[in-house]
């Protein structure tokens, strides 16, 4: 049961529906499933958020520790993103070292956070070359119902937005203080189903997909990261359309990430 299979007939059905702009769950091509995000889900973390997109549930936790800057960036702190696709989250996941997919999720999420300069890493430096904060973004997938990237990224960004720097605990300051977040990138993922490009694919839609495209946008109108995945292709016009749609969805999802208790 290690491989993911969708019945040929289901794939065909998904593709046929898409031709007339319909989807299996009744959504339109440009509709997300219900999205929610709950900051502060885990109190042992310095910041956390539980994001749900339809049947997909992802928990992200932030941990800050005092460590050493990398030799090539002596004036900056360290940001590390890690994703675990634990076997609890899907009948098709198995225990073991991170799979290529888990690595892809963590890297694509990491890229959006890094490229958008979500955190000013120079502010995480305590003593150049010697002491800096190491910010761990850990992503724990609890249920895989498709579109892991968006749920993981929303959870991660929301967790960062609500994170606290534990300065007192590490003896680096008098009091803990909120982690400063400069920008809030949001990733939106689309798949091609025939001639139709739909947002927020379900698990079955991802298996039927002929290409996947993720676009990260920020609140000042920048595209900060993109990732094409799966087998398939997108034309430049497709990409432009996807970017336009990503900005619109991004604004809405950003409000969820930045809302809630500060």
């Amino acid at each position, binding site marked *: 049961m290690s491989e993911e299979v969708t019945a040929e007939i289901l794939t065909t059905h998904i593709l046929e529906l898409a031709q007339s702009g319909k989807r299996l769950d009744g959504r339109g091509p440009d509709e997300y499933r219900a999205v929610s995000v709950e900051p502060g889900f885990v109190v*042992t973390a310095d910041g956390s958020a539980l994001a749900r997109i339809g049947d997909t549930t992802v928990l992200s936790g932030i941990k800050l520790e005092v460590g050493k800057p990398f030799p090539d960036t002596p004036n900056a702190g360290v940001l590390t993103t890690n994703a675990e696709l634990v076997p609890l989250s899907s009948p098709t996941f198995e225990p073991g070292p991170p799979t290529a997919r888990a690595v892809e999720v963590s890297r694509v999420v990491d890229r959006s956070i890094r490229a958008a300069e979500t955190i000013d890493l120079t502010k995480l430096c305590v003593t150049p070359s010697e002491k800096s904060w190491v910010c761990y973004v850990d992503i*724990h997938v609890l249920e895989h119902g498709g579109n892991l990237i968006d749920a993981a990224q929303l959870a991660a960004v929301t967790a960062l937005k609500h994170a606290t720097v534990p300065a007192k605990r590490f003896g680096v300051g008098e009091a803990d203080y909120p982690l400063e977040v400069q920008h809030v990138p949001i990733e939106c993922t689309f798949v091609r189903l025939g001639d139709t490009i739909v947002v927020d694919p379900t698990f079955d839609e991802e298996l039927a997909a002929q290409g996947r495209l993720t676009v990260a946008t920020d609140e000042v109108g920048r595209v900060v990261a993109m990732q094409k995945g799966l087998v398939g292709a997108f034309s430049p016009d497709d990409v432009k359309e996807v970017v336009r749609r990503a900005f619109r969805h991004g604004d809405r999802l950003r409000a969820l990430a930045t809302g809630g208790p500060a």
Partner: protein
Amino acid sequence: MGSVGANDVPVLLSPEGLRIDGRRLDELRPIKIQAGALRQADGSAFVEWGANKVMAAVYGPREVHPRHLQQNNKAVIQCRYNMAAFSVDERKRPGVDRRSQEISKVIGEAFESVVFAEEFPRTSIDIYIEVLQANAGTRCAGLVAASVALADAGIPMVDLLPAVAVGKVAGAIALDLKKEEDNFGEADLPMALVPQSGRLVLLQMEGHMTEAELAQALDLGVRGCRDIYEKMKAALRERYALGPVGGGA
């Protein structure tokens, strides 16, 4: 959190016999059990136990992977206990460590003792426990979650497996230690009970207790397990009270 120095032992037991969070010695932390918390798993449960948050999922009976573990006369029961990196104060390195391996093994063996595995030859019943937030007693919380998840998956068993740890704080035997008590406590004794037979299928102990204390601890633990047993049954009744099996999915 974490700022407590080594010599800074908090007052674990007040003169009135109340513990750090106001509980009596024989009192459990608040426990919330939700049967059927995930949609894709064959069975699942989410347990909030004090400040512990634990999710468990059960898959199977299904094909055995890796194949060579397959047994011709019964199902193999594979259990994986895992802690999220952010579930504890000091970030835990993701992945399997020796502690998780041991806990996975003893929990798996506890379930092997109650599941009718011979009804499903050449299959695997996979139990996954994810600790999302930890505050002492995660193996018991995980076991309780997994037990409800097994029932939710419709796996035939002798009985549910309630579990709890008993410890010793400030010289007194106490039920269900929380983190501060565990850190500064003098003993820890987790157990899982088969309520029907009154037998324990998981039992570990670390620390020091006299023979009398141990006997007292076992009695206290069994009583705690029986209370938890009622909560587990209530969670399953709630899940299946309305509508057909799997309703809502």
